[in-house]
């Protein structure tokens, strides 16, 4: 889980923090630093909570290759302060369910359940629903209720809170029910303080855009006023799930090396490299060890801190590692992207393009681009830009995003495109490590490799749009032409009849037919 890797990232800082603060648990750390996870203010918090839980639910269904059915309800519970209210948030899914013995930890312990493998995952904040539940507990002092079943004979219900100081779940109540109807999925329900009115536009945007890149999902949202927003699936077809891969040597840092060394069962460097890194075989491992002057028989667990740092530098310096492959990525695919855009934007025309896999700093990534024109897309004097990372909509800091820069730098006139046209542009990056610029994780950094791929994707789709526009212009011109003929020829007939002093107008049907035929040929 890439999420686990990021957790360690923060965990690394945690270790340092221990020196200063003494005993501080992971939960405590996040409690004190909730900005990092996106819970900056009451409006952001309610948005982040919904988003985290919805994304967990999507992942839970997709891991079973089941089209997700997700139901979200936010209900008003009472006033909290002048500007904020208490809401109850309930998220239901039809996903894989959480194994009963893991439920308390999965929802009541921050940084639980790491794996040391990489694949593309949604979680932008890397903390899943736990942070949301923690935030709810901090602001309302009420327990969260978790109901889950894997579809077998039992349903498990937990009421729990998080012991923030110890980072341990406190189980308040536990029930086991018979699962007569073979229900499968997870329901999370808890209270939190927030400002829905202010968050509403972003939340609705979030659902709409999530529906766009998850056209195989049913999303239902009931807001505190009882309004129902429903996003219905238009396809059962789902993208290939990503395969787990090992980290690529170019992409590791000291913290990851330490973790790997900690858990490895291998007793020498050669086997350590072959078994824990992506696309490293015996030959490459041998060459690297020669290059970095490390003995193949060296026990990795005996490396000193300085040697680990040196190992990381050498891994980055060695030029002969094979580039990572993209099997660990799960792009949406052109078909689904098209279906999603058509479903949510109802354009007159859409062009999509998926780039071939590329890498930056050892991390594979794939760019998918879509351009939609006309139909229900509004004309607002600028392009509508939709940004996605690992199938998650990015809704903040648009101006800083690399996609926006590439879009602004493009010479659109070459493609007969003007900024006042009704155009929506969609850019999706999927990667095992999305190159976010800041801890807020709302926009993509300007990496030359990423920039190039986005640019190429945009140019490809822009060319298709240009074809469409040229063709449409042509059809329009023909239609207009036919209109002119059928408007004026009868008049010429009428006037010449009276001028010539004839009784009966001339037969112009033949002429009109020939114009039509002529016109159709040109179209």
């Amino acid at each position, binding site marked *: 889980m890439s999420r686990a890797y990021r957790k360690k990232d923060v965990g690394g800082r945690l270790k340092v923090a221990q020196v200063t603060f003494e005993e501080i648990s992971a939960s405590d750390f996040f409690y004190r630093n909730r900005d990092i996870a996106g819970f900056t203010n009451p409006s952001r918090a309610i948005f982040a909570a919904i988003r985290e839980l919805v994304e967990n639910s999507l992942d839970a269904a997709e891991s079973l290759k089941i089209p997700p059915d997700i139901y979200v309800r936010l209900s008003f519970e009472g006033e909290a302060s002048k500007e904020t209210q208490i809401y109850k948030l309930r998220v239901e899914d039809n996903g894989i369910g959480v194994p009963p013995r893991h439920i308390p930890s999965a929802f009541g312990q921050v940084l639980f359940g790491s794996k040391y493998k990489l694949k593309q995952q949604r979680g932008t904040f890397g903390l899943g629903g736990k942070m949301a539940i923690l935030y709810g507990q901090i602001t309302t002092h009420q327990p969260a209720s978790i109901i889950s079943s894997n579809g077998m004979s039992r349903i498990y219900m937990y009421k729990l809170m998080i012991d923030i100081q110890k980072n341990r779940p406190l189980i308040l109540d536990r029930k086991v029910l018979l699962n007569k109807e073979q229900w499968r999925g997870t329901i999370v329900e808890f209270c939190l303080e927030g400002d829905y009115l202010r968050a509403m536009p972003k939340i609705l945007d979030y659902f709409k855009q999530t529906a766009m890149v998850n056209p195989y999902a049913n999303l239902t949202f009931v807001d505190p006023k009882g309004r129902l927003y429903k996003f219905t699936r238009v396809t059962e077809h789902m993208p290939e799930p990503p395969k787990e891969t090992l980290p690529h040597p170019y992409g590791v840092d000291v913290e990851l090396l330490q973790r790997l060394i900690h858990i490895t069962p291998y007793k020498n460097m050669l086997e350590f490299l072959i078994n824990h890194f992506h696309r490293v075989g015996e030959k490459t491992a041998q060459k690297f060890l020669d290059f970095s002057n490390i003995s193949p028989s060296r026990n990795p667990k005996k490396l000193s801190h300085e040697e680990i740092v040196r190992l990381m530098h050498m891994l980055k310096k060695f030029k002969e590692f094979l580039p990572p492959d993209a099997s660990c990525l799960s792009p949406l695919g052109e078909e689904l992207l098209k279906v999603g855009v058509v479903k949510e934007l109802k354009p007159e025309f859409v062009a999509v393009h998926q780039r071939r896999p590329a890498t930056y700093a050892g991390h594979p990534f794939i760019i998918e681009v879509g351009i939609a024109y006309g139909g229900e897309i509004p004309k607002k004097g600028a392009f509508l830009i939709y940004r996605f990372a690992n199938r998650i909509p990015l809704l903040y800091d648009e101006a800083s995003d690399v996609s926006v820069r590439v879009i602004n730098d493009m010479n659109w006139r070459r493609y007969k495109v003007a900024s006042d046209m009704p155009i929506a542009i969609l850019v999706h990056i999927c990667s095992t490590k999305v190159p976010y610029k800041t801890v807020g994780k709302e926009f993509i950094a300007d990496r030359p490799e990423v920039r190039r791929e986005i640019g190429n994707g945009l140019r490809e789709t822009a060319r298709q749009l240009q074809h469409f526009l040229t063709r449409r212009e042509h059809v329009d011109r023909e239609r207009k032409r036919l209109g002119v003929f059928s408007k004026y020829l009868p008049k*010429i*007939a009428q006037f010449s009849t009276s001028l010539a002093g004839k009784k009966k107008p*001339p037969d112009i049907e033949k002429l009109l037919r020939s114009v039509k035929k002529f016109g159709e040929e040109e179209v």
Partner: protein
Amino acid sequence: MEKKKFKSTVIERRKEALENLESLGIKIYDQLDKGFFPSVEMPSRSLENIHYDPLLRQFILGDRKVRRSARNIRHLKPFTQLVWAAAFSHELTSQRKTSTLRDVYYSAQAYEMTFTDQQESNNIITDLETVLGLSREDFNIFPEERSAVFGDLTIEYTVPGYEGRTLNLTSHPDGVLIGPALTSSEFVKTTADKVIAIEKGGLFTRFIEENVHKKFNAILVLTAGQSPRATRHFIRRLNSELNLPVYIFTDGDPWGMHIAMVIISGSANAAHLRELNTPDAKWSGVWATDIVNYKLPTDPLDDVDIKRLYELQRDPRYKDPLWQREIKTFMKIKKKAEQEAFSRYGLTYIVDEYLPAKLEETK
């Protein structure tokens, strides 16, 4: 039978106009009926195709033709407008009604043939003139009247309601408007032996008050600036049907000079038309040399005047030595004078002294 005294062109021209319009209609009708895109051909009116014909002593259109075809999408609307204008004119002419350019512009809207502006409808009428080889007055589209005539000429109206009625053109002391009714009337009798065309209304009135028509046995025509085509055609008829010599008096400046020239040799704008000019008419004054000889009060020529003089100097209509001499004199003295300038010698000086002298000089 006084009526037959002069050979009339009025009836003839109306007949010709109706025939031309009808044959245009038949041509287009037949093309349509055979399943062809109708088209008409006409001489090009572009500047390169306008030439001066020294024999006719007027501008004419060259051999270059343009074809207006309903097959061409860009021609379709103007073509339809042209056919409409023809049908409209035919209706006017056969019903003996008249219209103006402005009227045409509005009438089109009744047929859902809206013109985008006055200029567009004016162009279509000019096209129709070119196609038919007739001027628009022939198919009863007249300009706003402003020029007038006074003198001993009896005419007989042909307009509906007035057929057979006669009028002597001395009957109204302000003169009679040269409008559709007068233009289409027949000449019955006259005692005049010359025509004097005058640029300005003030002098026209002075001449009537001073009995110039009697003293000089003349028909007086007010051109009111650059003369309308109906007036030019009227002057031509006075000249050709009644065999009267024509003398033109204008201001002494390049613009007055050109008013006379257009009466004599026609304009480039009307190169597609015939019988609007009077090649034998004479420009009698005010010349640049008159300004010198009569010591007239003057204004200096301004830049626009000078520029105009250079244009005229190169104009083929001005190649005659008299014109060239006057242009050079204007350039030399750099002065201009109006007809009214003679008033410095008393109100009647122009009639008593100047006019007889000049009529004699340009005889």
